[in-house]
């Protein structure tokens, strides 16, 4: 490629669109550098925080003044929607990172590598959300996934963590292969991998349909939708909890962002099938969670159920031009609320793992409200938001999703989804019951605080999550205005 074409590719707009990506890459490299110079060691947390905040501010700048054209030869878009997703990715990473700061004990010496890997993940997410080309999406997917494989196995002394990493890696590799195979078939059928050209192409050829099916299988794997959800409980449970938080919020949001962009690939007549998949996913997630005694595993299943809920929006998005905007709003609002809620919930589990007997079973949560009232109250708030009780962002998110699914004509499905969320509430209540209504279990050892004062970043992250969950629940107007 000659220099001339590179300069036309990376014109001003492209530079602006890629700004957050550059900021993150630069920050990650600086972090590595700071790591090897002992004098600068103290500054590493500052570098991570500054990088993520800078990327977020750049994304907010793009929200207010989006790049209208698709840049870099029509492969990457920084429109308002993908910039909004970008803000969400930065928030998810920042929250997970804050919760990870005092999480590791035996692997603390490797915190630098951990933070570096975490800083890389939002780059992948942004590429996925902004991709206007199957190959760019694939690059994003891998940039996101490879650090996550390592992060999932980060607690090397724990067999479960290694198992989680290996499982995630093997299945993720399969999913990636599915995607490539699908993209190859699509290319073979239409001669292009660019969305702009695929929109014009004949999308009914059997080879094309088969390719799209493979691509969807791969994306469904990432968002943990039936029948590609089986890895979720093991991986979520085994991974270090802050990494679980990142997977549950960031990865899922990125895959959904792509799914909304790529929904045109799926014939609109298949919306019914998507709804069916959504309902089965919700049923499996909610019923599975009902059986769990470990809260972390319970939240993993609840994550499956939430993926099912948001899939209803995708179906609505597919079913008509009329609902596009409403569906997009609903998806962004729902995922926004979910990022704060799930990050908060998993983060608090991370806090719990660092104190007491280090487990997150219902048994060990008994009597938490008297031991740590603020933590129990925050956890309750997040659980109520996950369950969709008013005054929390989770309720309005659910409301918007149901509105879209009702308007797209799936009335019965909406009623079933509503009833399935009652099942959801049943297991969230089990946690609240344990925290507030049952006395502390005698088996539990004396609660230990690992480091005095070490909870400051966690408390900060929890407070941010709680404030946003409540604000999104009570003043949704402000957030909805941002979406337009």
């Amino acid at each position: 490629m000659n220099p001339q074409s590179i300069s036309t590719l990376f014109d001003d707009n492209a530079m602006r669109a890629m700004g957050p990506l550059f900021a993150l890459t630069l920050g990650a490299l600086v972090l590595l550098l700071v790591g090897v110079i002992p004098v600068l060691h103290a500054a590493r947390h500052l570098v991570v925080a500054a990088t993520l905040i800078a990327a977020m501010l750049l994304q907010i700048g793009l929200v207010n003044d989006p790049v209208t054209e698709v840049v870099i030869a029509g492969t990457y878009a920084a429109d308002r929607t993908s910039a909004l997703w970008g803000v969400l990715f930065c928030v998810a990473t920042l929250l997970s990172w804050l919760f990870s700061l005092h999480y590791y004990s035996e692997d603390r010496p490797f915190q630098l590598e951990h933070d570096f890997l975490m800083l890389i993940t939002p780059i992948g997410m942004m590429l996925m959300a902004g991709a206007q080309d199957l190959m760019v999406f694939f690059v994003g997917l891998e940039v996101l996934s490879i650090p996550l494989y390592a992060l999932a196995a980060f607690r090397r002394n724990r067999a479960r963590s290694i198992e989680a990493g290996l499982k995630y890696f093997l299945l993720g590799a399969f999913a990636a292969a599915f995607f490539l195979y699908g993209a190859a078939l699509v290319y073979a059928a239409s001669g292009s991998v660019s969305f702009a050209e695929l929109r014009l192409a004949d999308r009914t050829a059997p080879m094309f349909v088969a390719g799209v099916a493979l691509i969807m299988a791969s994306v469904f794997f990432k968002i943990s939708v039936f029948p590609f959800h089986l890895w979720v409980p093991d991986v979520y449970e085994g991974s270090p909890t802050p990494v679980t938080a990142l997977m549950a919020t960031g990865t899922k949001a990125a895959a959904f962002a792509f799914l909304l962009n790529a929904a045109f690939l799926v014939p609109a007549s298949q919306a019914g099938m998507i709804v069916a998949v959504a309902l089965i996913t919700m049923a499996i997630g909610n019923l599975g969670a009902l059986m769990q005694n470990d809260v972390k595993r319970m939240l993993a299943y609840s994550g499956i159920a939430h993926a099912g809920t948001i899939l209803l929006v995708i179906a609505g998005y597919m079913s008509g031009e009329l609902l596009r905007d409403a569906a997009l709003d609903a998806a962004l609002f729902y995922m926004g609320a979910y990022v704060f809620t799930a990050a908060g919930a998993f983060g608090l589990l991370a806090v719990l793992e660092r104190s007491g007997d280090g487990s997150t079973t219902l048994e060990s949560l008994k009597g938490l409200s008297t031991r740590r009232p603020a933590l129990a109250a925050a956890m309750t708030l997040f659980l109520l938001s996950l369950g969709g009780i008013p005054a929390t962002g989770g309720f309005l998110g659910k409301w918007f999703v149901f509105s879209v699914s009702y308007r797209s004509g799936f009335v019965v499905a909406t009623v079933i989804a509503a009833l399935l969320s009652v099942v959801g509430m049943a297991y969230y209540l089990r946690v609240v019951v344990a925290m507030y209504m049952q006395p502390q279990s005698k088996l539990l050892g004396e609660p230990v605080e690992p480091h005095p004062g070490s909870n400051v970043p966690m408390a900060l992250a929890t407070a941010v999550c709680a404030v946003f969950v409540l604000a999104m629940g009570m003043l949704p107007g402000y957030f909805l205005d941002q979406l337009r």
Partner: protein
Amino acid sequence: MTSLTWLTFLPLVGALAVLLTPSTAVQLQRMIALSTTLAVAVLGFLIYRQFDAALLDPQNVVSIPWFQLEGGPAIHFKLGVDGLSILMVALTALLMPIVILSTWGHVDKRVKEFMVWMLVMETGMLGVFLALDLVLFYFFWEISLIPLYFLVGIWGGERRLYATVKFFLYTLAGSLVMLVAVIAMLYRFGTADIGALTQQAGALAVADQSWLFAAFALAFAIKVPMMPFHTWLADAHTEAPTSGSVVLAGVLLKLGTYGLLRFCIAMFPGAAVEWAWLFMGIGAIGIVYGAFLAMAQNDLKRLVACSSVSHLGYVILGMFALTSAGLQGGMLQMINHGLSTGMLFLLVGMIYERRHTRALDEFGGIASSMPLFAVFLVIAVLSSAALPGLNGFIGEYLILKGAFDVSPALAVIGVLGVIFGSIYLLVATRKVLFGPLTRRENRELSDLDLREVSLLLPIVVFIVWIGVAPTPFLAQSQPAIDRVVRRCSEARALKFASLSPQRPGETAALSSQAPIR
């Protein structure tokens, strides 16, 4: 900030104030809660005084734009009081200070949390009654579940966990079906304003109305609770702390009957006319069934809980007669039930605090050791059994009159309920108060103290007042009820017109009056 916003959110402010106190300052927390609820009671009284029943439109309206979803109607934060809600608001404002005062005796652990939840509950309940925006209504409706869940779950009796989770999931299931109906209404009519929706929904074809009616009715029927859904009530009541039971019986159950009136009947008169027979039937069965259940109980609190099922059967029977007398009777009976059943729960709580049992056969003859208690219990029982001169009589008379005009057979069943009601109430009273004083523990019981008397007295005042001079209370809701009755008669006229095909000209004329969307 108008007074209604203050009225609704003052308890929340109080709750925040309680939150800020140190958890050991129990007296301070109690005083904050009591003074907050008293302030709400004063505000409620002022609003009650200002209220002009002749104006049909909601009064003291506050309306602030809240949010709007793409392609959906604008949602407002809209509160207002009208003839259907004024009595409910007054009842809530009156009962809450009494409830708070009653907790002095039985809540001594985790007082701070208790007061917070009580105050949050008051905000939720007032919000439900005052909301004039469908979304806001739903918002408060579901929020009001949370406090009771904690109140029963933390301060309840032995099987409290089972009871509270059952209560929560039962009501939530109903609510979520209603949520879908709410969404349907919003997008069908393009507005969330309850007044506008009431205007427009009545014009829907009866078949369309019936679906929405059914979804709303399910949520309300579970809350009331109506007959097949009543099982959560006995558990929740039995396990709840006294104050929780009083709020539950006094106000929370009224959310269901109030919802039936404002939404199912006023909003969907066509469907209400169509399905009135079903609801009247269930109401009548509920009266007798609840009475039989009550007769079989040995636990005093469970007995009162079962009598609730019976009393709420009257409310349903009266309201779905869809006549002026029936609806007014139902309305008044909601207040009566709040007062008399609330008082019964308070009394049961007082004796439980002294004896730590509620089993009927543990008592006997305590009228001699607790004469004041005996007087109050007899008043409450007679009010509950509808003795003329007390409030219950007025309500049940109006209900039975309304029902008789529509279906004499059901009215007869209702009258049987009155008889059964007297049986179980008087038998229980005899077992507790009279007969030989056999047990030593009962001989040493101390009578009611000043606090207990002072929280019962206001209820007694209203029991007698409504019984002797019900007109001022009925007048508050009469014009609003008349309008509902008018709507229902129009719907009924339409129904019978369409049922008589031999007069096609009239049918066409009538149906052309109603724009069908």
